[in-house]
């Protein structure tokens, strides 16, 4: 085994170990972030889903920024079809 091959093997092992240990953390952070995002979506769409929202006037302003995520969101929330009659995303 040449010196060069040895180094790249070590590099590969290092990378593998890194992934092995880091992936679960990365995944749980990503999941936590996604949960936050889902909650945020719920707040923005609250009024249209029948939850009283004291700030509907202001959440509406955020609608353009999250509208394209709506489909993924309702699928993830376990709703096969769009829960809003007037949003026919699927």
């Amino acid at each position, binding site marked *: 085994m040449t010196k060069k091959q040895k180094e790249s093997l070590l590099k590969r092992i290092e990378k593998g170990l890194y992934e092995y240990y880091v992936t679960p953390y*990365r995944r749980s*952070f990503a999941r936590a972030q996604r949960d936050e995002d889902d909650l945020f979506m719920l707040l923005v769409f609250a009024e249209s889903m029948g939850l009283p929202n004291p700030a*509907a006037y202001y959440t509406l*302003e955020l609608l353009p920024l999250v509208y394209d995520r709506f489909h993924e969101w309702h699928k993830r929330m376990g709703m096969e079809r769009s829960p809003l009659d007037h949003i*026919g995303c699927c």
Partner: protein
Amino acid sequence: MLLDLAQSKKILFFGGKGGVGKTTISSATAIARANVGGKVLLVSTDPAHNLGHLFDRPIGSQPVRITAGLDALELDPGETIEKHLKEISSSLHKMMPPNLYGEVDKHVALSRDAPGMHEAALLERMADVIEEGYDDYDLIVFDTAPSGHTARLMVLPEMMSAWTEGLIKRREKADRFAEFVRELGQDSSMEDKTIGGATSKEQERESKIRQILLRRRHKFTHLRERIANEDETSFIIVLAAERLPVLETIELHDQLMKANVSISCLVVNKRAPSDSGDFMEERRIQEEVHLKTLSESLPESERHDIYLQPHDVVGIAAVEQLAKQLQ
């Protein structure tokens, strides 16, 4: 009396039960202040606008000149909501394919009559009127809607800033998670499923959301500070010396205290004069009974009486006449 108050404050709110003469008293105070050389803006927040009826001329959502030193306007939440929705619609159109425009417009149209929309729009306009008029006018006078409506309007800035505060905190949390994920390297299984993912497009979206929320918070905090500042802002409760207005005044006083709004005085309108025959004398004695209840419940509050006028208060001349009683 009321004139002294008008000269020492920047913002005055007039509230009280329906029909006691809030519009008349607030207009007279505004004119009295204008007459001693101040620039005054008179603003009606009552959806059933009465300023136009009082001055017997059309007044709209933009300031109109009533007399030297006095401008007036009637806030129109409906108009504000329309404008707000139109802006949202057009920015949604920009990012949606044209065949979905109909769906987008339907969603936005449904929000028009959502509960709280009118209040929020009213609050927004109120904040803008105060900010825009603050430097141009010596005094801004608000003629508000009947008690319950107004008490709610006064707690709204606090409630709304708490709400935006909460949302900002949540976004910050989501952002921190995204930051961790970025530092730990890419993970293709999650990346495109989150709002604040790793791509620059996502970061841009995140910063726009943040911007909107921060702008909101700034507006609410500012309005709340202005309303809570006792040196600049004061609330005046107008009432009649009758049983129901007195009881409602006591309740409104309580609600406003809870909302940290300082009440500078009570104005008892349409009092029976003392030298106008037996009938009026009897009425006057009856009124004293109700006013006793009032002073027992609110012993600290200063009180001013305004006497019943023989004629209707309509038009500038009549309001000027009444304004003289306030000096």
